[in-house]
């Protein structure tokens, strides 16, 4: 084909029959879906039959490297995974910075589509055009560091390994997929792998990646490298990582959800702030594949009861979920819990929120310490949080109930527990109290994978007050938020499809992506065309969800956000009323051209050429 940068081949693996095949694509496919998340969502949208259970062989797990992945674009090494989510029953993508996507491109494929179910524990081995489904009896039960270790010793250091921990095997609905100590964390996609008896995906690619214009690509890469390094925030960004603004969000804005969202200002913040822990525990920076602006940190504990912990981490979200959200002010405990989550293979956000939820239930006497089997209380967070993470990942004791996520756990517990379950669509929320940023609250509802900070990223424009085309944004107002959220969702759809890190969205605006895509593929896009692709992707997800029975009634904000105002701090008194929620939703549906119930209209689908 004349198009460069893409092989035009999507590898399809049927684990039931053990057969593989190639789906050929062309320039039109790229023009329509772009790559990365766009490809992955197309494969799931068209591959999963209506009503199929997320944990059935009928579900499709897609993996697709972004357009930039493997090519020389600073911070552009992201790979998208997608499937019907066992957490939310919606079409969900989860993006990771591991190197397996780029390796898949070197092996000659633009994407991978896995369906069916292997008869027994297996792993997929891809080495260029050699495809094998191998037995994985010896890997079953192993953690996410042991698995790549064994497989690399077997197949060579150059193979890339994406795998699940024990949690994925046990179909924990918050199980993640791990590669290079980075995770596709959200939406329980690790359980989809587990349901297919697929412990790992191993890829080795030896082919060249040939950009359309190598000289131009290198020139662009150098230019952005310089812009990025010259940014005033570069030093702080790389020194403190994504938790850089924790103190500001907590103290200045008062929207840092604390103790299962009962408060939004964590008074005991000191230790979990990276300004405290980075100088004390971090020995070097860690980066995703092809990222020259590393937010990851090698966090090591060398003495005390958590001695031996060594993780790539302590992301902002984790500092909230396993820290403030559980009232856990002990940074070593947060790091330990983070390591447990990584090894057993669960999402730190969902795990932390589920634990915080259980702690509140104990606080209110809805469940007892005896039922939980430990002193799972705010004042004993340091000890109990890491332990409960392990129990969730292994489905042991009370961990088995929490491993289903807060929505299902609340249903099972009963006794009014639902009142304290913070989620939308069954997804536990990230670290932004939407009572104090209402557009972000809307995006929790409209996010096709449930409560999420990255489908629209509305927290940034609302907290800063401006972004891209907008200025003077009032975080406590609902005015115009429908249009902004829809536009940001389209923007982020493009980001996930080119495979850029959202840490770069301050300077890599959509218009700037055009020349990069052209240097790699030779294809030209206008800014409008790119945003149209973002819109198409969102409409496919929305359309899928409606077909699978998820409509507006399932989108709504939890009681905590609607009924309990933020009790103190800079955002004291803030909440989203039912009326505001409904107005924002109506506004959003109108902007989207969707029915009030959340379904893309036939006209909209036709306009976007979605079949």
């Amino acid at each position: 084909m004349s198009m460069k940068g893409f092989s035009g081949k999507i590898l399809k693996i049927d684990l039931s029959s053990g057969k593989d095949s190639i789906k050929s694509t062309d320039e039109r496919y790229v023009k329509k879906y772009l790559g990365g998340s766009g490809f992955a969502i197309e494969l799931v949208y068209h591959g999963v039959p209506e009503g199929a259970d997320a944990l059935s062989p009928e579900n499709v797990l897609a993996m697709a490297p972004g357009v930039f992945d493997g090519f020389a674009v600073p911070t552009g090494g992201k790979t998208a995974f997608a499937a019907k989510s066992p957490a939310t029953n919606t079409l969900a993508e989860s993006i990771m910075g591991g190197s397996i996507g780029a390796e898949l491109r070197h092996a000659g494929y633009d994407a991978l589509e896995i369906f069916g179910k292997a008869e027994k524990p297996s792993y997929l081995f891809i080495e260029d055009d050699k495809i094998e489904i191998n037995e994985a009896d010896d890997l079953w039960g192993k953690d996410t560091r042991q698995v790549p270790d064994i497989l690399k010793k077997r197949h060579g250091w150059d193979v890339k390994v994406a795998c699940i921990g024990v949690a994925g095997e046990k179909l924990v609905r918050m199980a993640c997929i791990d590669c290079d100590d980075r995770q596709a964390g959200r939406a329980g996609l690790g359980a989809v792998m587990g349901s297919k008896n697929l412990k790992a995906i191993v890829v080795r690619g030896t082919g060249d990646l040939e950009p359309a214009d190598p000289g131009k690509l290198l020139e662009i890469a150098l230019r952005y490298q310089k812009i990025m390094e010259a940014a005033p925030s570069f030093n702080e960004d790389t020194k403190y990582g994504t938790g850089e603004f924790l103190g500001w969000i907590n103290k200045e804005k008062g929207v840092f959800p604390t103790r299962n969202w009962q408060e939004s200002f964590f008074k005991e913040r000191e230790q979990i702030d990276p300004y405290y822990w980075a100088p004390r525990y971090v020995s070097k920076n860690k980066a995703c594949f092809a990222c020259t602006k590393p937010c990851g940190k090698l966090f090591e504990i060398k003495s005390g009861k958590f001695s031996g912990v060594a993780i790539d981490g302590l992301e902002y979200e984790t500092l909230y979920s396993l820290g403030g959200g559980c009232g856990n002010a002990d940074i070593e405990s947060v790091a330990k819990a983070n390591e447990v989550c990584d090894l057993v293979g669960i999402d730190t956000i969902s795990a932390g929120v589920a634990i915080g939820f259980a702690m509140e239930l104990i606080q209110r006497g809805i469940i007892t310490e005896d039922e939980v089997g430990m002193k799972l209380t705010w004042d004993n967070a340091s000890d109990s949080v890491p332990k409960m993470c392990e129990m969730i990942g292994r489905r042991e004791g009370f961990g088995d109930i929490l491993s289903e996520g807060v929505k299902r756990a609340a249903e099972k517990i009963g006794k009014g527990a639902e009142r304290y379950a913070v989620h939308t669509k069954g997804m536990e929320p990230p670290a932004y109290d939407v009572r104090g940023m209402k557009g972000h609250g809307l995006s929790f509802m409209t996010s096709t994978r449930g409560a999420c900070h990255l489908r629209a990223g509305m927290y940034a424009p609302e907290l800063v007050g401006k972004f891209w085309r907008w200025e003077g944004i009032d975080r406590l107002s609902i005015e115009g938020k429908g249009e902004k959220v829809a536009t940001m969702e389209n923007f982020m759809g493009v980001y996930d499809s080119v495979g850029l890190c959202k840490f770069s969205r301050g300077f890599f605006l959509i218009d700037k992506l055009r020349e990069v895509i052209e240097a790699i593929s030779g294809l030209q896009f206008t800014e409008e065309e790119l945003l149209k692709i973002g819109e198409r992707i969102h409409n496919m997800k929305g359309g899928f969800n409606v077909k699978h029975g998820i409509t507006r009634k399932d989108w709504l904000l939890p009681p905590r956000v609607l009924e309990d105002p933020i009790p103190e701090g800079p955002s004291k008194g803030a909440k989203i009323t039912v009326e505001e929620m409904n107005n924002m939703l109506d506004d959003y549906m109108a902007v989207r051209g969707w029915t009030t119930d959340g379904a893309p209209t036939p006209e909209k689908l036709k306009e976007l050429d979605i079949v």
Partner: protein
Amino acid sequence: MVKMLVPYPDKCTGCRFCEIACTLYHEGKINHADARLQVHKRDVRIDFPSVCTHCVACKDECCVTACPVEAIKIEDGIVRVDEDECTACGTCVEVCPFGVMRMEETAFKCDLCGGDPTCVKFCSMGAIKYEEPKPEQYEAVRKLLKAEE
């Protein structure tokens, strides 16, 4: 003193951008196996770059003296392969202690991009610097490589 690529293993994040940039610059395409330097990414604690030392730190494992046909020469402090003389016997690849001597039709290696190394421009954390050689930095990498064996 001629400047060299100097590795600082404790600064390496394991992103491997240097490898990508290296092959894009030299070959116009990307293939990590063709990169004239290598990032070793082993586990969460260990990632480090190994670079060509241009004879400063190879000791008795030097490709220049090992080459049976004298196809590897030092010019202006840069170790170069004479492609016309090279018989592709692979001896240099075997002796190279840093694993940065590569082989296709002939041997090839880092040429410091003619004095403006591309890898360094992307190494924002300073794990590879272009400066006067620092033997202790090469020793640190050599130790890590030995530990891997």
